[in-house]
């Protein structure tokens, strides 16, 4: 059926075009002969083809364009009175005798065009007459094209300012009224098309209407191009005229298209000054019209206008743009309560973008928009719709991106409230946006209360929420998240120690509830943050006299103890041990001997009870020895206890080589190269000798179990230690002792039962070279080395 119809249309169009061409041929012949009568006859016949009802708008347009082309020749003929001898006034009368109304009116418009040009009558009178006469054609498609013709021929003859048709009572107002009237009538015809024909071809109707819309919209273009239409006239005449028709026609297709047209065609400056009228009409449109889209378009245009130059910004303030737009939007959202949430939120996003562009310093406005969002979401369960979630993320990200300063967003009371409505994965996504913004912009967060708000916002990352266990998360994602949180902990900072302490307490409060999986990430940064503060306090003198206790190192160490203690729940003994040692060293620097001792105790307890892996023990004991070696705060008793313990554990490591190395490392515990450092030559020697014994035992074990003695590396290492301590002036280490050791090594290396090891050989060789070098140095060192024979 449809295909048949389409084929038929093609046929009719072809027939129509043929008929036009034929009549046009005769018309032109008559024109050439200056035969007015014949010309009118054939032109009327030609125009009769436009009386068809059979064509869709698209095809009708083809036909129309043919006729239009031919009429230009006719118009030229009409203009030249010498050719037909009839005055234009009479001609205007004459063409009205044409039989059928449609050809009659086309001819009338054509003559009218010439009439206006002749200036024998005021333009406005002719225009008024024409626009009224066109009422005679009420068929939608035919009427629209007729009026479109009128619009086209009159376009350059409107009594605009500066035009030749202005003057003597012919003013811009007349031009405007003419166009408005034509527009109004065209819109009525256009709307009527919707109701023509049976219901089942409604879709087809809408398509046809869509094809015709530019004919109607063109009038708005014309209005926008009339020079004489200034803001005043737009406000008083043009806009009310247009809006009245738009609202009253009650047709959703027309309303949407025309409002859109209006917004696009007229300058933004005008829209700004007529916001109330515009927005008022928006609220009166049919319920099915997508008002949000219109409002978004309007706001986007206004946003761009604002961005174009800072000079225009005061205008926005003057017209209270934000107040008007926001209340229009609240109304729309309220009126359309059934609108899905995503629609409302995308409106808020448009409004927020506008606000950030136009009023970036008005945080209260930004907060209002967020507040509207909170109201919309309240009472509802957490958002399920993915698009709605995306929009909320856009809403929340906009202020952060604009200000590049998360702290500003933190001051908006409604910001955290909006976040509460997010489901946990979107909440985490948003939290990451916030953290990344802080990291990228190096945002400094200076106050503890802001830190509180921040950590509440990122709560989803910091602890388990909504009963979702951490195990369900992808491990890599989880680690990435937690590393971000860890890095974030370094960002809050304040020069004032009291405030800094408050900040750290705030952070501690939030991370302590993170659970065993998060603590290993979040505890270390907090610990080092605290240690940095301790150092800062060290350099400040004395205590501030006041009612509140100032932040002190002692307080911080108590805090540190608590924080590291939490790691036992993970459990994370190796990490905790390292952190205890750091605190011990820091306490030592603050001269707090008991505190330092306590930290060492904790470290040792962990070593004894929790560090079971032998490789981990080796590292741990070296860290203990290394830290202890540097400590100067301990009195003799405490130091003895600790060094004794350390040495004892060193000797108890599983593998003999490890034992050996740890034990000779301990020798440094008894010789500190500092003026008031300990210098216990005997204990040093004891360690070294013990190391030697262990090395020997290792050699023997190797012979027994593997059939040959192991490499001599350990001996060479011990030799180097002997040399080191010898150089430092330890009286217990004699030249002869070194001599014997050298000989021992040489023997071992030459012995058949020793495994050859190029590494040890090179090591020994370079050690020997070193001894040689020291000898040749001369001076004090040379003398010391003199007795050595290598």
């Amino acid at each position, binding site marked *: 059926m449809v295909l048949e119809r389409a084929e038929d249309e093609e046929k009719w169009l072809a027939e129509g075009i043929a008929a036009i061409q034929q009549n046009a041929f005769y018309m032109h012949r008559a024109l050439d002969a200056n035969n007015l009568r014949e010309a009118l006859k054939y032109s009327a016949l030609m125009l009769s083809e436009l009386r068809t009802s059979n064509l869709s708008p698209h095809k009708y347009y083809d036909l129309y364009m043919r006729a239009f082309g031919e009429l230009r020749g006719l118009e030229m003929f009409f203009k030249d009175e010498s050719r037909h001898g009839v005055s234009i006034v009479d001609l205007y009368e004459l063409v009205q005798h044409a039989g059928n109304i449609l050809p009659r009116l086309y001819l009338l418009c054509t003559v009218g065009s010439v009439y206006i040009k002749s200036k024998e009558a005021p333009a406005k009178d002719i225009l008024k007459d024409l626009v009224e006469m066109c009422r005679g054609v009420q068929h939608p498609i035919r009427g629209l094209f007729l009026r479109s013709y009128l619009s086209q021929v009159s376009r350059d003859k409107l009594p605009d300012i500066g035009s030749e048709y202005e003057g003597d009572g012919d003013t811009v107002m007349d031009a405007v009224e003419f166009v408005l009237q034509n527009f109004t009538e065209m819109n009525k015809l256009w709307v009527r098309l919707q109701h023509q024909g049976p219901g089942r071809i409604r879709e087809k109707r809408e398509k046809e209407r869509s094809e015709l819309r530019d004919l109607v919209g063109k009038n708005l273009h014309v209005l926008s191009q009339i020079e004489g239409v200034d803001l005043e006239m737009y406000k008083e005449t043009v806009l009310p005229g247009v809006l009245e028709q738009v609202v009253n026609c009650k047709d959703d297709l027309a309303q949407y298209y025309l409002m859109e047209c209006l917004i696009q065609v007229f300058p933004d400056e005008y829209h700004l000054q007529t916001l109330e009228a515009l927005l008022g009409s928006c609220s009166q449109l049919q319920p099915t019209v997508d008002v949000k889209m219109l409002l978004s378009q309007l706001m986007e245009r206004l946003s761009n206008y604002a961005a174009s130059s800072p000079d225009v910004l005061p205008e926005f303030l003057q017209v209270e743009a934000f107040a008007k737009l926001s209340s229009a939007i609240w109304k729309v959202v309220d009126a359309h309560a059934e609108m899905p949430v995503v629609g409302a939120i995308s409106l808020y996003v448009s409004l927020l973008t506008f606000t950030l562009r136009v009023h970036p310093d008005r945080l209260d406005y930004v907060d209002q928009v967020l507040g509207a969002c909170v109201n919309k979401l309240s009472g509802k369960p957490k958002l399920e719709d993915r698009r709605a979630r995306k929009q909320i993320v856009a809403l929340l990200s906009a202020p952060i991106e604009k200000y590049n300063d998360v702290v500003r967003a933190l001051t908006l009371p409604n910001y955290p409230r909006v976040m509460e409505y997010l489901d946990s994965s979107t909440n985490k996504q948003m939290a990451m946006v916030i953290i990344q913004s802080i990291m990228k912009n190096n945002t400094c967060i200076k106050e503890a209360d802001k830190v509180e708000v921040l950590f509440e916002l990122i709560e989803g990352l910091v602890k388990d929420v909504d009963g979702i266990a951490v195990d369900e998360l992808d491990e890599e994602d989880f680690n990435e998240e937690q590393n971000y949180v*860890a890095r974030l902990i370094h960002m809050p900072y304040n020069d004032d120690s009291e405030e800094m302490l408050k900040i750290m307490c705030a952070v501690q409060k939030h991370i302590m509830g993170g659970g065993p999986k998060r603590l290993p990430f979040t505890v270390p940064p907090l610990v080092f943050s605290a240690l940095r503060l301790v150092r800062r306090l060290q350099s400040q003198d004395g205590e501030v006299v006041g009612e509140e206790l100032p932040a002190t190192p002692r307080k911080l160490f108590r805090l540190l103890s608590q924080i590291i203690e939490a790691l036992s729940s993970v459990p994370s003994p190796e990490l905790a041990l390292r952190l205890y040692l750091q605190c011990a060293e820091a306490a030592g620097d603050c001269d707090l001997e008991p505190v330092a001792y306590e930290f060492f105790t904790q470290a040792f307890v962990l070593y004894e009870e929790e560090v079971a892996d032998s490789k981990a023990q080796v*590292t741990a004991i070296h860290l203990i*020895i290394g830290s202890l070696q540097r400590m100067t705060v301990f009195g003799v008793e405490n130091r003895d206890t600790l060094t004794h313990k350390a040495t004892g554990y060193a000797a108890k490591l599983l593998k003999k080589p490890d034992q050996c190395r740890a034990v000779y490392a301990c020798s440094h515990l008894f010789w500190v190269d500092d003026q008031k450092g300990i210098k216990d030559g005997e204990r040093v020697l004891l360690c070294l000798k013990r190391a030697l014994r262990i090395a020997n035992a290792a050699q023997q074990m190797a012979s027994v179990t593997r059939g040959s003695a192991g490499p001599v590396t350990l001996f060479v290492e011990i030799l*180097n230690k002997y040399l*080191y301590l010898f150089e430092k002036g330890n009286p217990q280490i004699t030249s002869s002792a070194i001599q014997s050791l050298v000989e021992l090594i040489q023997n071992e290396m030459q012995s058949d039962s020793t495994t050859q090891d190029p*590494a040890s050989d090179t090591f020994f060789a*370079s050690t020997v070279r070193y001894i040689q070098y020291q000898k040749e140095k001369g001076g004090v060192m040379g003398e010391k080395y003199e007795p050595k024979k290598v």
Partner: protein
Amino acid sequence: MVLVLALGDLHVPHRAPDLPAKFKSMLVPGKIQHIICTGNLCIKEVHDYLKTLCPDLHIARGEYDEETRYPETKTLTIGQFKLGLCHGHQVIPWGDLDSLAMLQRQLDVDILVTGHTHQFTAYKHEGGVVINPGSATGAYSSITYDVNPSFVLMDIDGLRVVVYVYELIDGEVKVDKIDFKKTTTTTAH
């Protein structure tokens, strides 16, 4: 000429959030032939970042590194030089140059690169050169007060190595350089 970047002790995220922006903008991929890292990165993200700067990446294990399989020491040859790498917490007393010299003799290298103290040093002794590139992020250290972010770039050319040290002091990058020469191709004296 061969460019070798030496850096370490970044302690991300335990002690520092990231490399300083000024360093990041200087460290551009494709300009460096080798990277030697003294350890304590501490996380994989830092490893991956360094890998983008240069695929030939050598790392020694620091006591806080997430990756426990990095070696305790490493040796490699670049041009005429033998380099040794070790984090340094294993060598007691920490930061003691004579003890480090012992390690250098043991590894039999011309240049020993170590860290742990977060303090830049470049020291020449009869056995060779000991370089500590400091902490690239200026991380807290129990050993050194007032740590400035620093790293080292070595330009190895034949028997000569020029050591450039970049330090971030009060927001400005300051550069210093030190020259070292080997006398023979076997060991430096």
